[in-house]
Each structure stands twice: as C-alpha cells, then as structure tokens.
C-alpha cells in the first residue's frame, strides 16, 4: 500500500474536459491528481474540437463570412438557456482564452486557435466546423483552401470512399470553398493489408519509407493545378512520426486528412496527446475507477491509493463516458447527484429523471433528443446543484458532457463546452471555490442515495 496522495485538486475523468481542467489547475500552481477509468469519449471523437456554430446562420452563407467562434457561442447561449454556454453567463467571454489555452497545451497535435471556425470535410459527404483542429487537418480547411483539392483514393482501403469525401468538399464550393477531384493511388494491397483497420494503416504509414512511398505515388497521380491533397484520417497515430509532413514533402504539396468516424485515428492521437501533456505537466494520473467517493475533502480510493483533495472537478462524461447512466432512471453513479432530464416537449429538471425513455425522446431522430441532453444542472460556477437547486458542495465543480442541457450531436458544441467548462472549473477548483469561503449550502454528500431504479443494462 502506497502513501495517501494529498493534493489541492482531484479531477475525475480523462477526456478533454478533465485534461483541460487538470492542466488549468496545474497552471494555477496547485497539485493535481486525475483519476480516469479508461480513455474517454475523446478517443472516439472526430479528432477536432468543435465549439458549435451559430444556429441562426443561413445554410447558404459563405464559409469565410460566417460568425466567429465567440459570436457563435454567444448566439447559441442566447437561444438555449440551459446550455452550459448560457449557464456560464459573463464567463462565456473567456471561451477564446480557454481555446487558446487548450491549443497551447496540446500544441503537439493541435493547430493554433485563430478565432474562427475551420470547416473540415468528413467521410460522409458533409463538412463540419471546428474551433480547434489537428495540424494534420489544416490544409483541408474549406474556408481557406483555394483551387482544387485532390482527394486520395487508396485502392487497398475498402472502408474509405474518396467520392464521398470529394462530395463533402464540392458541397462547400458554392459557399466559397474549393473544388475536388479524386486521385486514385495504387496503394500496395496484399492479403492482410486488405483487411487493415484504420489504426493499423496509420501504424503502417509511420514506418520508415512508407509515407515517402505514398507521397511519391501521390505526386505521380496528382491532377494538374491541385493545391493540396486530402487523405482518409489515417495519417499516423503518433504526432512525432509526422506522416502528413513526410507525405507532403514527397508529394510536393500540403496534405490533410478528413475528420473521422469510429474507430478514429485522430481521436486516438488526441487522447495520446492529452495523456502525454498531463504527465509532462506533472499531473498525477491514476488509472482506474474512483471508489468510496464521498466528495471533496473526504478520502477516496483509486488505483490502490487513497486520494484526498479539498476541491474536485467531475469530468466523467455523459453516457459513453459513464458519468451518467440510465438504469430504468437516470443516475449519476459516482456521488448520486440528481440528474436533470428534459422532456420531449418543455420541462427540464431532476424530477423527470425517471420518465420512460420514449417520453424523453422525439420520434424524428434528426431533431435534438432531450434524453441525450440529460446531465447535471449547475450554478453559474458549474457547481452541480441538487433537485432543489442548492449547490451540492462548495468545492465540487463539473465540466464537460457531465453537465446537461445540450445535445452534443445536434448542436456540435460538445468539445467546446469541454474546453470552456474544463478551463473554468479547473481554475475555480484551484482557487479553492471561486467564492469567499462560505458554509456549504447543500446537503452532505454521504446522504445522497445512488438514485434508485431497478435493473438496467450492463
């Protein structure tokens, strides 16, 4: 048994929200521990960090003329009062500062923050906005790229359809984006390579000579006038291998990869960068479930160690991360904090957490789904509140998807919320509460039940 770990801030959750919170608290000079069960939903993300676009923007608006990152977030906040951007109130003004902080901390993979959205192609014939993207994606920014993008088709790669990615780019052309043309590469295809998953292909391209060969092949297949080349999202798992740079050098033009679905090489790369940065910044990372958790100021256990911290940041995610689960009713499993749910029409609050799933969803899957916006309600400092609206604990903060009030899939603000709330909650936790030390208003955590409900999925 190793010694008890005492620190100022304990962060629960190792995705973008938790990592940014830990790094922000560390930057403030505190000792920080981060407990994480497994790589978070970040490893399954597209690889870029979107902060949400202006919902009032016309679909035909030129990409270069669209609202910037900060303005988009303000408009989202104005339209959606439960969104963490709206809950943040005046502190939403610090979104750009938070994004610049994240870009700096994760500079090994992320391109610098420039205040506006980058519009990036996907394998689905669509394009998406990102406030922060990886360096490997910049050359495919449809708001900046000009002329003709060569979309690379790899003959050996069955799950990649260059035509779909080209359609993504062509869709942007009427909005001031570039044109696209498919360039077919006779990528070496043999028995086992034919069945490679994206991460296996990414590992292969890291080998000495592989990226150079591919770049040479690309140079020969390039359409005339191509200004950049767009690849499937397989350009290496490790940023150090610089697969994109090596292909670009061999091909003689900038190269980029699209955003990814699952399994996501850029997502894995981002997750690895988070973990590397946490270690380099001196955050104590504890791999495993947090057990016997009773809240800030009381010892908990993780990875065979006892941890004690006066301030906590919960960044345990929503359903994929496991920060919220539904077992017949919606539950926050770690501390039993009441979960606020939204009805299909209207209401919002912890009293709805036990409603049947069908009552919390809309039939049309394309619309925002209230059930998927369930999460903790909080005060303006992102301190979770109970069913009566009272702060659960003065030094307990939340960050990321654990906070409810928005459906990530429909407003696209998921990782922007993670960065903003992680940054603010990390700083507030490091400052010891953010408010003049006042007696705790909420009930002691030990009395909160696990939320009840029978059965549920495993």
């Amino acid at each position, binding site marked *: 048994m190793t010694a008890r770990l005492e620190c100022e801030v304990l962060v629960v959750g190792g995705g973008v929200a938790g990592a940014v919170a830990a790094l922000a608290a560390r930057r403030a000079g505190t000792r920080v521990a981060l407990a994480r069960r497994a790589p978070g939903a970040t490893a399954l993300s597209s690889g870029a960090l979107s902060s949400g676009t202006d919902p009032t923007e016309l679909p035909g608006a030129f990409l270069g003329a669209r609202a910037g990152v900060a303005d988009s977030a303000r408009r989202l906040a104005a339209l959606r009062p439960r969104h963490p951007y709206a809950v943040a109130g005046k502190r939403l003004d610090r979104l750009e500062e938070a994004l610049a902080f994240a870009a700096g901390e994760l500079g090994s993979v992320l391109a610098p923050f420039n205040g506006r959205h980058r519009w990036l192609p996907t394998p*689905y014939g669509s394009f998406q906005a990102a406030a922060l993207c990886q360096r490997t994606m910049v050359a495919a920014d449809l708001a900046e790229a000009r002329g003709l993008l060569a979309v690379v088709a790899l003959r050996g790669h069955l799950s990649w359809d260059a035509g779909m990615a080209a359609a993504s780019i062509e869709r942007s052309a009427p909005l001031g984006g570039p044109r696209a043309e498919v360039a077919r590469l006779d990528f070496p295809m043999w028995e086992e390579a034919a069945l490679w998953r994206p991460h296996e292909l990414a590992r292969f391209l890291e080998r000495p000579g592989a990226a150079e060969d591919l770049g040479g092949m690309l140079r020969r297949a390039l359409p005339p006038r191509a200004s950049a080349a767009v690849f499937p999202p397989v350009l290496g798992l490790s940023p150090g291998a610089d697969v994109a740079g090596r292909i670009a050098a061999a091909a003689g033009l900038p190269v980029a990869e699209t955003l990814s679905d699952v399994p996501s090489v850029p997502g894995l790369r981002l997750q690895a960068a988070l973990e590397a940065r946490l270690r380099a910044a001196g955050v104590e990372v504890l791999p495993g479930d947090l057990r016997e958790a009773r809240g800030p100021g009381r010892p908990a256990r993780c990875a065979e160690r006892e941890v004690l911290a006066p301030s906590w940041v919960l960044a345990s995610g929503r359903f994929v991360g496991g920060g919220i689960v539904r077992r017949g009713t919606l539950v926050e499993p770690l501390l039993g904090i009441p979960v606020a749910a939204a009805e299909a029409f209207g209401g919002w609050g912890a009293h709805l957490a036990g409603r049947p799933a*069908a009552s919390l969803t809309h039939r049309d899957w394309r619309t925002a789904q209230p059930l998927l916006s369930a999460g903790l309600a909080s005060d303006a400092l992102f301190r979770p509140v109970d069913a009566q609206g009272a702060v659960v604990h003065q030094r307990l903060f939340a960050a990321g998807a654990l906070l409810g009030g928005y459906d990530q899939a429909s407003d696209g603000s998921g990782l922007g919320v993670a960065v903003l709330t992680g940054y603010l909650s990390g700083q507030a936790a490091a400052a010891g509460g953010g408010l003049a030390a006042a007696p705790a208003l909420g009930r002691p955590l030990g009395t909160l039940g696990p939320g009840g409900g029978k059965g549920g999925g*495993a």
Partner: protein
Amino acid sequence: MDRDVIVIGGGVNGAGVARDAAMRGLSVLLLEKQDFGVGASGNSSGMIHGGIRYMTSDRRVTALACRDSGYIRRIAPHLVFRIPFLMPFVSRRDGATLLERATWYATEVYVGTYDLYQPLKGGKPSTRLTPEELYAIEPALRPGLGGAVTLDEWGIDAFRLCALNALSAERHGAEVRNWTEATEVVREGGRVTGVRWRDALTGEGGLARAPVVFNASGAWSPALGRRAGVSVPMRPGKGVHLTLDRRFSNYGIICTAVDGRQMFLMPHENDSIIGTTDDDYYGDPDDLEATSDEVEYLLEGVESLVPGVRRARVTRAWCGLRTTLYQYGKNEDDLSREHLLYDHAAEGAAGLLSFAGGKLASYRAQAEEVTDRILLLLGRPPVACRTHQEPLPGGESLPDPAELARRHGVARAAAARLAYRHGALAEEVLRLCDEDPRLKLCLCRDEGILAAEVVWCARHEKVRRLQDLRRRCRLGTGGCAGLDCARVAAQLAAHELGWDADRVRAELSDLLDLDWRERRAVLDGAQLAAAEMARAVHRGLGAL
C-alpha cells in the same frame, strides 16, 4: 403486359403464392410497396412452430403447421434451426396442492398430445425434467421450480424466407417488384381487370392487367379493400418483440405474463428474443412503434421466471400486426389462428381474392390452397403443386462451414453464418472474396457480416434501398446501431447500385431513422451509450 394473376404484398403469403403460381406455369406480377416481409411476416417471432398454443382451440391449425414446418425444413434446410423449449412447473413437488398436481398432469398431457404432431415436423419428443435436471441445463431460472417438460420448435429468419420465396418466384418467370405500390385495383363490369402501380423510388407508374388479383397485403388489406369497394374483415393485433444483445438462455423458456398470457424468452441466431404482446390495433399500419409499457410488460413476464433479465441489454423493440380473423366479443388471445380466403365476387369484384389470418409455419400450404383457387378462377386445369419438393434458392444442399472457411480463407464463424443464411449459395458469396480479398472485411463485429455478403445481396437479392440490407443480412440491427457498418455498407451498395453521394446520404438517413424507431423505447444502460455514440457520428459528424 397482361398477366394471369397480380399478387399484392410481398409478405410470406404474397411471396409464397407468387412462387407457387409461377411454378405452376402462370404469369405473375408481385407488387410489394416496401420490401419483402416488412409487415407481420418479418416481424413475427421467427418461428416455424407447430402452435402448441392453438392445440386446444384450433387443432387443425396445429396439425397443418406441424406438417408444413416439416416441408419448410425440406425446402430450406439451411435457414431452419432447432430451438428446444422448456415449460417449467412453477411450484414444488413437496406440499403441492391438488390444483397444482392437476396442472402438472394437464401440462404433461398437453405436451404429450403435442408429441403426436412432432413426427410431422421432425421434432424430438418431449421429456420430463426433474428440478435438478432443469437447473443443470438452465441455471438462470428462479429457484423453487418443480421441474419442466421440454418441447421442440424450429426457428427461422422470416425476412429471408419471404425474400427467398420472391426470388424463387422470379426464377420461375414471375415479375417481382419491391418498392412498388399497388395504388388502385381496377374494376370493370363487376370484375377486376388489373392494378395501377407506382414505383416509390423512381416515380414510374403504370397499369398492369390480369383477370385475377390476389390481395395479400396483410394489415394493409382492409384499406386496400376499401379503395376497391370491398370489405376485408380483420382484427389486426399488434405483436411486440424485444431483442437482447446475446443468447441470454440456453433454451427457449415459456413464461406467463402478468395477465396469465403465455409468452417466451428464446435464443434465436446470435440473440435472444422475448415475445410477444397481442393487442388490438386500430391505428395506421404504416405508423407502428413499440411503447414503453409494452416493453415493461414483456420484461416483467420473463422476470417472473428469469430474474436476471433485468440486467440484460435490450437492443431493440420491434413489432408487427397479425392479420387475425375478425370475431366480435373475444379476447385477442382467444381469436382463431385459422386462415380465410375472401372471394369478393359477390361485392362486384369477381377475380379479387383477399387473405386473412394464417401462420408463418403454414404459409406454404396456405399458398397452395390459394393457388388452387386461382387456377380454378382462371379456368385452368389443375396442376400439381411442387413447392414442398423444390428447394428454395440455396436450399439444395448444406455446405460444411469448416470446409468453406478453409477454401476461402475466412473465419469459421463467418463461413457458418453464410452457410446458415445462404445455404448452397454461400460458396458463391465467398467466391467474391477470392476475386477481391478486401471483401473479407468484417463490417460488423456484432453480426459478423462480411463485405462480400453485402455485395452479393446488392447484386442478387433485389436490394433497392440500404434498409433492404437490414432484412437480407441484418445490417445495422446489432447493439451498435450501425456505428461500425452503416457507412461502409452504404458505400458498397452505392458502388453496386450506382448511387451518388446524395443518394448514399439519403439512404443512410432512412436506415438510421428506421433504426431509431426500434431503439427509442429501450434506451437504457449500455444501449443508451451506444445510441449516444452512434448519434455523435451519424448526426454530429455526418450531418445526416
């Protein structure tokens, strides 16, 4: 383009009649407004069973179903699998009341009587299990049971059964059109003379002429009849099933629901299925969804014998409408499972036949009876039915999965799956991998769908929309809700069927819409996390 007969509806009855009529030399047009089996057939329990439930009331139904399930095993041996069932005694031997003893005795006689039918369908005779034997083979059962009796049933992929009948009809010269709606039954001078149709995908339409029209549109029949000015009495009953993410029990288990109805939990292919409800349905057959209370009713019923079911992951809730015969004043369960062929001549529509009732297991015999009648209406001499002798496509022989796997270099489980779904044609499917090794890619780790199967179905099984692949090869029906397979399968289908990027997006969107309707009543636990993940990709990233 004059035909002998136009069949409306591509469920098991429509496809079965189209096949039989074509095999007997008639010229046939089959119109299905969506895809084969989308209604009651494909959404049935997936059993070729003898209907022990009907033995006391409709013994003829049981006998017919048992005989015909024997035939179905002969013509589609690859597609039929054995499901042994347990019917547990819910009380202990010691201290049993007289009533309980009488119940045991009655159950034994009941199942023993059913044994008389087993030779017809090739099932094993029932066995009496002591409590010790029962718990040894099915430890998940709640304690305190007094043993069980076993009975043998057969499972089938009902969507494929419908598609294979339609494909066989086509091989015998029928024109088979899915995604083509019969918009109007045309009548002239007291007779039907044809059907107006419209292709839902191309918008193309036309008038097909025939002296006989067979309306096998299931729950849609009353509405179609009303448009044609005839009455098709029916009491549509909604049946809901749940799918669990794995084989949750070793055997089928017959349970009793809260209201005393018989229901079941059974292993079926890779999953388990819980079924079923039976409630009158007066709504729109095109707008059918399982509700939270139906899900709860089914789970509660199984929980009474298998308490662990509350920890199971329910992946989908799906439903169909039984086309039960009309009777006033009876409970749904007590309605006859007999079938009835309506001849609308007396209503001024000579040549128009409508079908109601019946069972999946008896579909072939029902089709034979209808085809006999069609020949009579056409004034043709009788021709012998051969549908019980000639195999359905792929049913000619049963390939050895190990041998297939070895020859084509794929995993044995993947080969076994193809052998089950495609029978003798599995070899042809795998031959695609020899030409293009990329087609060995496993699109779905849940279902084990190889890319080759998607390509094969798109080429040879009348796939017109991406959602047709849900029924041909269970695409996107697993726990991950299409996260792994949907985009790649859409790209493969696009390559085969000439879809552009916009069409691929429309097809994906349609597939996911259908998927959401089967999921939203059961979003809980891990399945809710899966839905969040899939939405993040399809809606968030793909903007579908």
